[in-house]
Structures are given as C-alpha cells and as structure tokens.
C-alpha cells in the first residue's frame, strides 16, 4: 500500500507538547468508550486529528488479586485466578494449577493433559473470535462482530457442556481436570468446529479481502522488530514481526509436543498483518482441536488424588510457569514458604507490555480515528493488565 508506515520514534525520545500554546488538544479516550478494549483510558494529546502524545491510564479494574491470593488456601485460589483475564480464564487456571503441581511434585494423568490442552485451545479460539469482532468493529465493520461473537458463543456452549460454566469454567483444577467429557461432547466439538470454520472463511472473505480494511489497517501500528525484545513483546504481535516464537513449541508443555503444528509467522508487523496472522492461528486452532479430539484417550483417570485441600501445605519453593495464550506469554510466578497459602503470586500478562509500553509509543502520529483499531490490533485485555 502507498501509505507510509508510522514514523519510527526512538523510545527514549518523547515529544513534550506545549499544551499552553493552544496548538494541541488533550483528549481522553475511555474508560467509557466503545473503542477501548475494556475498562481503561488513554490520555491523547492531539494536533489536528493526529496523536502527538499518549499516556495510558489504568486502575479501573484493579482488584488486588495477588494480595487476595496470599490470604486464601492453595485450593481456594483456584476459583479466584480465572477471574484475572475475563475473556480467557483458562490460561490462568492452567498456569496456577501447573505451578502448584510443579511445586508439590504432582504428576497429572494423561487424560487430564489432553483435556487441558483441549480446554486451552477452545478458549484460544473463543478469545480470538471475540477479538476479531472488536477488530472489525474498530474499523467500522459491525457485521463481523455479529458473526464472530455468535461463533464464540457456540464455543462457550461447549464449555458449558464440559465444565458447567460459560465464562468462568473452573475446569482445570490442581491435580487434573474436574470432570470427564460428557457423552456426545466430542461430536459436538467437531460439529461446532465445522460451523466455526465455515464462518471464519466468510469472515476472511469479508474482512481480509476488503478495500476499507486494507486502507485503514495496512501500515498501521508498525512494530519494528527490534522493539520485540526491548519491550518484551510476545505472541502474535511478535510473530507478526517475524519472530518464530511460540511457547507451545518452545516450552513444549501439556500435549503440544504430541500435536503437529508450526507457529504462524508474519513479516509486515502492522495491524493488518497481525490480524491476518491471528486468523491463520484460528484456522490452526481448529485443526489442533480436531487433532486433540482424535488423540484424547477414552479411558483412564482425569484427576490425581490430592491431600485434603483444607490443610494442603506445599513444600517451600518457587516456580514460574508460562503458557502461550492468545496475546502472548502468560505466566504465573508462585512462591511457597511451605505453608497452606501462597507466599507470593505474581502474574505476568502480555497485555501490560502491549497496552502500556508499546501502545504509548505506537500511537504517536496515528490519526485519532485509528487509535481504537490500533489498540485492538495489539489484542489487550485490561482486566489482566492490572489484576
């Protein structure tokens, strides 16, 4: 496309606009704004209709999870952690459970490993479907959201059938998973995947072969590859910049080493490329879910016996467990002092990097109408930024 890429601004440099000059206007976007991915706000300094400076403001969703967790028993934290990232709770459940299992030296049964993988891939798909609706909406394309959110709802139906909850599944419990698949569930999964895949093809047609989308997204929010390591950019944002980094491959957790897939890598590193890459990952996710359904053992235990949760003490130690979520590296750093409650839990969410450090720098020079599109293209979830 002919449009120039966002001019590169060295991170150390920051234009300090003289607000008293009358040349600039301070504008708040959010917290109540449809173009914000959640409850957060941006303080934009604009000149004409382009952004000169941006400051992100968070704290609207801070609940103090890490502190709350220090007051709850190991098992009591299990329903709490999933609330950290609302649209994508399962990664919290997995990371917390895996950290506990590592500290306590618990081996998870094979069936649970597969069911966890299935659960994570399903929520990845649901989360991407939610995102694609937002991305399209931010570029003025409401129809996509109508389709994709419905597709997401079908995936949530599967979760409801499997775990008993739509949004908060609380399925991946330390020691395994909470229940075996109900009868007919795997058939429903495959049926749903067919519908979703069909729909994604339509979305691809409408959204990615679309002149308006291309005009607005191509070249928008270019992330220079050298930012990736400087700011800790992970996930699709890093892959779109040409880095072949995927924790599913690199760390080989759960059943991923036994599944055949290759991380999708892009090159252009702009909003359009990121969107296309995520779409490719959605198709890949559908393929992974089908593989998992094939591999899923029909017999065997799905949960390891744990000590009495009311006085479960975990040996002193610390660990960091990370998983590849839709937005990048999601990690739990858990410290135990040998007691019945965590000494410290620190959650590493990818949104913090993307929505604060990267966003503030990328948004300079962008037209204010594109701020929302840029923000969504980074795929961030504010509840996870501040926990």
């Amino acid at each position: 496309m002919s449009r120039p890429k966002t001019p590169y601004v060295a991170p150390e440099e920051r234009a300090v606009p003289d607000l008293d000059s009358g040349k600039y206007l301070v504008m708040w976007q959010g917290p109540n704004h449809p173009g914000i991915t959640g409850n957060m706000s941006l303080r934009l300094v604009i000149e004409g209709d382009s952004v000169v400076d941006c400051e992100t403001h968070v704290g609207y969703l801070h609940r103090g999870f890490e502190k709350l967790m220090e007051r709850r028993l190991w098992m009591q934290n299990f329903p709490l952690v999933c609330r950290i990232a609302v649209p994508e709770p399962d990664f919290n459940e997995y990371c917390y459970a895996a950290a506990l299992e590592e500290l306590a030296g618990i081996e998870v049964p094979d069936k649970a490993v597969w069911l966890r993988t299935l659960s994570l891939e399903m929520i990845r798909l649901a989360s991407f479907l939610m995102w694609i609706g937002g991305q399209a909406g931010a570029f003025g394309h409401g129809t996509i959201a109508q389709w994709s959110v419905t597709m997401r709802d079908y995936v949530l139906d599967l979760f409801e059938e499997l775990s008993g909850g739509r949004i908060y599944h609380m399925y991946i419990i330390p020691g395994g998973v909470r229940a075996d698949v109900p009868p007919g569930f795997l058939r429903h999964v495959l049926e749903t995947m067919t519908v979703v895949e069909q729909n994604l093809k339509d979305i691809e047609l409408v959204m990615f072969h679309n002149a308006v989308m291309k005009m607005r997204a191509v070249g928008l929010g270019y992330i220079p590859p050298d930012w990736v390591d400087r700011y800790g950019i992970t996930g699709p944002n890093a892959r779109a910049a040409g880095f072949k980094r995927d924790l599913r491959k690199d760390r080989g957790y759960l059943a991923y080493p036994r599944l055949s897939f290759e991380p999708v890598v892009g090159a252009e590193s702009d909003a359009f490329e990121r969107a296309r890459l995520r779409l490719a990952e959605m198709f890949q996710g559908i393929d992974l879910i089908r593989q998992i359904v094939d591999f899923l053992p029909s017999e065997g235990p799905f949960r390891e016996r744990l000590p009495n949760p009311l006085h479960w003490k975990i040996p002193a130690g610390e660990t960091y467990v990370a998983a590849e979520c839709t937005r990048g590296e999601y990690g739990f750093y858990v410290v135990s002092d040998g007691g019945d409650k965590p000494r410290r839990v620190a959650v590493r969410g990818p949104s913090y990097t993307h929505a604060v450090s990267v966003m503030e720098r990328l948004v300079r020079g962008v037209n204010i109408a594109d701020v929302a599109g840029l923000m969504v293209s980074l795929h961030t979830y504010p509840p996870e930024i501040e926990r």
Partner: protein
Amino acid sequence: MDIKDIIAPFAVWKRAFEKPFTVRKPIDERPGAPRYRGFHINDADTCVGCGTCESICMNKAIDLVPVEGRSPSGGDSGLRPRVDYGRCCWCALCVDICPSGSLGMSNEYLWIDSDPEVFRYVPGVDPKPWDGAELGYRRAEGYRLLDMERVPMPELSHAEGVKSFLELVKGYSREQAEREADRCVACGVCVASCPAHMDIPGYINAVRGGDLETGLRLLYETNPFPEACGRICTRACESACAIGSGGDPVAIRWLKRYIADQVELADYGKSLPRAESATGRKVAVVGAGPGGLSAAYYLALLGHKVTVFEKDEAPGGMLRYGIPEYRLPYPALDKDVDYIRSLGVEIRHGATVGKDPALAKLREDFDAVYLSTGLPSAYRLDVPGDEHPRVLDGVAVLAAATRGEELGLGRRVAVVGGGNVAMDAARTALRRGCEVDIVYRRRQVDMPADPEEIREAKAEGARLIERAIPLRVEDSGDGGARFVWNEAEMVQKEPGKRPVPEPIPGAVVTERYDSIIAAIGQGPELSYITEADGVEVRRMKPVTDRTGRTSVPTVFAGGDLVNEKKDAISAIADGHRAARAIDRILGGRGD
C-alpha cells in the same frame, strides 16, 4: 487496490437466505447444560451440618445457620449451610468437598430481584423453584476433594491372632498417621459427641503437623488414658465424624493411640503440666478403674493428695480385668497408670472399701471421697438351672484370664449375650482353644457390641447363633451342661422402638456345652454404702447431680456405677468432672 477487495465482501450475500443464528426466545429455549453450575440444592436430611463447605468457600458465601425442626444430635450439628448469592462465585468447590455428598447445584440460573437483601437462602430448607432439580452440577463420579477411604491399619491376621494374646492392631507409622490425620476437616462435630469432649480436631492437627508434644498435652487435658482409649474406646466420635457420612470416618482412635505410642513415658513430663503447689487437702478415690484414676489424675494436678483404694492386686479396673490383653496390652495400660502415679497418686491395693476401711472412715479421714466402683459382677442368665456349676460369670472369666489362671472352660463353650464383654469372653475362649458359640437373643445388627469386635470374633472362628431366647440349663450328666433355647423371630411390637424377639412355638434347640458363659449385663456392688452414710441410692445407683455430687456434699460418684453409657470414656469424663467439682468444694477454682 485489487478489484477482488471490492467484490469479495458481496460474496456473503448468500447468507441472507440461511436460517439466522438468532434464538427466538432465549430465556425459555435455553436451559442450563446438564452440568451447569446454577443455584445450590441440598439434601437437608443427608447433610450433617459439618460446615466443610463453609471452610472451603473462599468468599465466605456459606454460613451455617440453625434451621427450624433440626436440633444437634450425634453426628449432626443441626445447622445447615446458607448460601449468599451476593458472595457466591459458583465455583462448586463446596459441592466437590461435601463429605456427605448432599450438596449439589441445579441448572437454574435465573434470579432477579430489586432487593439486594433477598439473595440468600438455606438450600433444601427454604423452598425454591429449583428444589429437586435433576440436572445441574454434581461432582464427578468417584472423584472428591477429600479422601473418603481410611488408611488401612496393619493388623495380625485372624488365623495368627487367635493363636495368642498378642495385640492384634499394630498401630500406624508416622507416614500412615499423618496421611490419616490429613483426612480430617476439623469440623468439630466429633467433640460434642465425645463424653469427655476431647479436643479431637486439635490433636489430629498436631499429628498432621508432627507436633506430638502438643498432641499429648491436648489429650491429657481431658483424658489421662490415651493409651487405653486409643485402643479400646467405644469411639462415639467416629460414628459422628462428618467424613463418615460419605465414607470411612477418620480413625480418631488410632490417631490418639499413635500420639501416646510415639511419646516415651519419660518424655511425658516435657509436655504435660504438673501441680504448681500442694493444697494440703486429701481426697479418697474408691476404685482404680479409668474413672477413679482420672479423678485422681485431675485432683493431683490441682495439688490435692489423692489416695486410691482398690480391692484388686493391680490398677486399671475393667481396663485390666475386663479387657483382654490382645486388645489392650498391659504395658500400654501400665504406661497410663504409671504416669498418673508419677504425679504422687497413691494406690492402695487389696483395700476393699466397706470391709477395710469403711466408707464412714474415709469420709472422716479425707476431705472428699469419690466413688467409682463400677459394675463388677455379671448378672445371672435368669433362667431355670442358671446356678449350674458350668454356668460361668463372663466378667469373672475375663478377670481370671488376666490373672493368668487356668480357666477350665472345656472344649465347647457358649457365650450368652451380645455386648463387648460377650465378644471379649468369646475371643478369650477361642485363644484358649475352645469352640465357641455366641448365643444372642436378637440379631447381629442389634448387638450392642462394637461391630468390629463382632466381625473379628466371627472371623476368628466363633459361631454366632442369633435369635435364641435361653429357656433353661440342664445337667448333661457328663460334667457339662445342656443349654436349651427357643428360636425366636423379631417382632415390631411398638412403632419407633426396637423390635422384640418373640419365641417361635415349638422351635426349641438343645446343645451340650462344657461351659456356658453369661454375659448379658453387669451389676453394681453397693454393699459398702451403709444407711448411716446417708448416700441416697435410687434403682441401685447413687443419686448424683450433674457434677457427680451425691446427697452427701463431700461424697461424689461416677463412672459405670452412675452413668448411662457405661464405657471407659464416659467414666473418664465423669472422673474429670467430679475432680473439678471436688476442687471447688475444697476451695479451688475447679479448672
């Protein structure tokens, strides 16, 4: 600009003719999934009100509240969980952990109101539209957060056990004890059911934490016979145990024994308290059984000088003379008694109160007297011919076995009765090489004996003859006796009461035995109380108030002699209670 980018979006016009995604009436057409975690349901009759749901709930959304029409009874706190939907996060950990399995969740999810105060109710008690919902979250089959199976106790095999008087139960190892202790949810339902109100969750917690000194201290706070009770207690606590409502109850008795077994007698002093100073008051205790010695222990702890009068040659009462060695080895009992002695308690053996010294003399010489003489003699069979020389007293047989005397039971032995004494007598006879029949009037399920004892007696080779009403004993003419009984059937004569055995006309059975051991019940020996003592006796029991005080202010009584339960732990509780009451009349604070 590619022309495709302009045309492609129009391709999805084809969708215009398809069935829309829209659900016509979402509220009516979409019930929750079969596993949906909706509002709670609770089977209030299965629920025991243990409050484990309350403990696991991280939101403090569950409170246990008293409900109408339910009062606390053994194993049921009388409380039921009330769920606050202003707190609940629908995680269903409460359902997963519920020991009795009464909690569940319906698949109902609609509850809308203008008043924030209404969002709480007691499931299963307050009627709700989703009561009895078929669908909804239940915990996965076979998977629970709690371990419902007891850590198996290493025991001698029955074939091995019956050959000798070696102790059958070997006791837990540290690893086993800690694993068993881990099953406890510390709900405390057991504390109310224990006659001595021992701090059971406390000492189980000590076992779990490996802090046996604390454990021992907690044991001795209410019970100075942990070795004995850790082996032979009737363990009302385990019947009450909330874990038992859906699985094996926690092995509370074995854990108590584990603590006492692990600590050497020499180390007892490190963790147990001693009297700070002597008060100079003197108390006499009549009977060195568990009740008497408990009273002696707590009185000594309070600084009083205690003298125990015991007619037998060794202390322990029924623990020694009534309970066989294979259940309670004498070294274990001696450990308990020796610690009590080490506090300065003097035990005078061979002193039969009433003969020497008289009760009046004790009242004169001591500031207070505690009577704990128990039920020393078995009642007769109460059938014609029961004075036959081959009809033996069950209690006397057990005492003779303790003294190591030759029992001379012969080859075939009948034990009449269904209590623990009958089982002990039967198993003692088995160990002396006899063939044993246990003859009982009712059915096995009606037996007052510990079910474990019955099972073991049968496993060791005793034959159980149920529903046999003794008719008479005849002399067989060859040194034995013929026992005649009438077969009976169980008849529910009065609703709500236990069924009564009714003889079947004509079904009379006669068997020849070398010995017939009567163990139908035991009676007190009260001839030492004279009218001049003024101790009021009603129905062969000294009349006491709640603390054990009789009509004479300085005379107290307790144990089997007085209480209804007639087991060791109740006697210990009586002893403790009386010790505190005695301390109060002697000017102490009674604690």
